[in-house]
């Protein structure tokens, strides 16, 4: 299957006063086109840092130290991937929100409270799709009877033609500074707004014409999350990263959003990286699952294998500590706490809490080995299948 993104030995560190936090320690994973990859783990294990490293938006004092993030934008063209870590920031700016986009955890803080919903959705369209939008405005102006004064209409058409050829043209910037012509992009913005209305209509928001005029505080949590999804989907991304997209929502709203993501995956987005700590969500939405612990990936497998045949002691303990629908026995709990990443345990990071540990575990970190079809585990004593 064609890959969409391949992460190779990425290390991300945070330089804090306490010391260097090794948030990601040589993490490698591959996401295929058309699949949903779930990344699970406890808080502080580096799930979000992985997502942020892909987008290259790791916040200060964090820094991506080494590794490769290869991105294959087109599934049909098998070729060299683009190493995102080597590209300039301007390339990333064009990529974010266009080819790769992200849904953030907290819809309250992901939306800007002082702009309308319509503005925030069309912002992404105006940035990435200016060319297409200009072209469609030109087409509209070509049709007669648009109510504009003829010479003005001709001039506008000229301007939009320039825009359709090169959205970054200097001349457009110049026009924006001339008082009378300053508002030349009015039609463009209107076009983008209409697109946003269509977009949120598709996501099942009732009366979208009204909603685009509202501000984030007017909407409920579930609605806001839909708007955030709409922004992420505006440019039809190749990879959608959903960072705890449903964690703060109620059960019934969560069911709505997960259903929506499933529907969308069928027709719009090709692949999803779903980050969550809820194993229940993973079981029903993902194709492949990666389990992370303290900055390292400890097991990657198909979803069925993870749940029915976990090979890493941590994965099996994690599954044991979640209440099931038919839970009768006492819950299995993992003794101890998640280690501090300033000075993580030597060797395998799980060994202080592991019941199968031997001497080698505390000396050398176990390598990732293939133990079954599409099933790899980083453990010396992986459980037998």
């Amino acid at each position, binding site marked *: 299957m064609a890959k969409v993104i391949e992460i190779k030995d990425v290390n991300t560190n945070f330089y804090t006063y306490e010391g260097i936090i090794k948030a990601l320690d040589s993490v490698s994973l591959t996401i295929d086109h058309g699949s949903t990859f779930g990344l699970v783990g406890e808080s502080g294990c580096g799930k979000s840092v992985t997502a942020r490293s892909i987008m290259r938006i790791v916040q200060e004092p964090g820094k991506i130290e080494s590794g490769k993030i290869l991105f294959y934008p087109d599934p049909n063209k098998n070729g060299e991937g683009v190493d995102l870590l080597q590209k300039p920031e301007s390339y990333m700016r064009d990529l974010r929100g266009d080819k790769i986009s992200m849904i953030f955890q907290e819809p309250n803080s992901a939306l800007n409270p002082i702009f309308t919903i319509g503005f925030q959705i069309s912002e992404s369209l105006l940035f990435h799709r200016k060319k297409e939008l200009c072209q469609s405005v030109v087409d509209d102006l070509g049709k007669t009877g648009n109510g504009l004064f003829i010479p003005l209409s001709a001039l506008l058409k000229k301007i939009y033609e320039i825009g359709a050829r090169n959205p970054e043209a200097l001349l457009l910037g110049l026009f924006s500074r001339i008082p009378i012509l300053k508002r030349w992009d009015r039609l463009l913005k209107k076009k983008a707004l209409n697109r946003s209305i269509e977009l949120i209509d598709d996501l099942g928001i*009732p009366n979208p014409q009204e909603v685009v005029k509202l501000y984030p505080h007017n909407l409920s949590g579930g609605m806001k999350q839909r708007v955030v999804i709409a922004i992420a989907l505006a440019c039809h991304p190749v990879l959608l990263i959903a960072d705890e997209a449903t964690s703060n929502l109620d*059960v019934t*709203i969560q069911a709505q959003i997960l259903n929506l993501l499933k529907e969308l995956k069928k027709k719009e987005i090709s692949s999803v990286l779903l980050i969550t700590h809820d194993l229940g*969500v993973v*079981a029903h939405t993902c194709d492949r699952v990666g389990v992370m612990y303290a900055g390292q990936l400890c097991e990657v497998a198909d979803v069925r294998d993870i749940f029915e045949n976990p090979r890493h002691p941590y994965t099996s303990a*994690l599954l044991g500590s*979640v209440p099931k*629908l038919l839970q009768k026995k006492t819950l299995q*709990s993992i003794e101890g706490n998640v280690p501090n990443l300033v000075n993580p345990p030597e060797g395998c990071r799980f060994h202080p809490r592991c019941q199968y540990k031997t001497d080698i575990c505390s000396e050398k970190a176990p390598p990732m080995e293939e133990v079954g079809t599409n099933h790899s585990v980083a453990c010396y004593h992986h459980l037998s299948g």
Partner: protein
Amino acid sequence: MQKLLELKNLVKHYPIRGGIFRRQVNSVKAVDGIDLDIYKGECLGLVGESGCGKTTVSKTIVRLHDPTSGEIHFHKQNGSETVVTDISRISHNALKKSKIRGKLQMVFQDPTTSMDPRMLIKNVIAEPIKGLEKTSSRELESRIIELLNLVGLSKYHLLRYPHEFSGGQRQRIAVARAIATKPDFIVLDEPTSALDVSVQAQILNLLKKLQEEFNLTYLFVTHHLLVVKYISTRIAVMYLGKIVESAPTDRLFERPVHPYTNALLSGIPVPNVNYTPRPIILSGDVPSPIDPPPGCRFSTRCPFVKERCSAEIPKLKEIEPGHSVACHLASETEKLIADKYGSR
């Protein structure tokens, strides 16, 4: 079974003030007339979506908030006889004097914010004891060590500050503080939602152990349905300030009656790949509690809404012993759901 607490038509409205004289213009109907009995030794789970009034109920029971109207009867064991007191109206001082204060305790949601960052753990746990009884400091310390051992910590943790502990340990300290006054009843307000999955299991097991050891009664408030299924013996489902259904845990999960309970239970993401969920997707959002819909609160989202639903408020009726539902269509919902969404 012996009753411990009886809530009778409990109402809590938060006023919204406006105008230059700050007069009351409206109110948030957080809890709007609920009747609930809590029996001795049980763990009652209170579930519902955010904003439905779960936390308000729990805070009103321990009198952190004063109820607008309604009664809370507390059955206190006094030797062999039980004394019933209505604690909804009496003053905080009287509450303390009648020794009920120490019998009602609470564990809060977020262990990072529920403790004073400038108090030593020793003082955090000692505070409720000091406020209620006179003890010598030596005796107090030995009691605190005993409490710490009970929750799986040791005396080496006495002279530390809350920030030195992890979330799970902090929640253990909060539990120790709650059981310090030998309570009969503890309200657990989402005690595990700020914790990681592996630590959550530790706390749940600890709570179960303590309940058996001290014969405690819990009110477990949560929105996580699998957790509530694991720990509670009986569940009450709330929606927009009203209780819509209450039943023993197993029965509720097997045969939910109210359409809202059905939707809630069908939407649980179960960590099992062989289980295919068939969620009932409700349209729309929870209405605002400032201006709740007339009649049945759920009528705006209910898939089987009838004319009667939006006119008349359904009463909580017992359909079978121990199983009460507030729905006009209680007798036919099972058939209606099977017709619309397939049998389950």
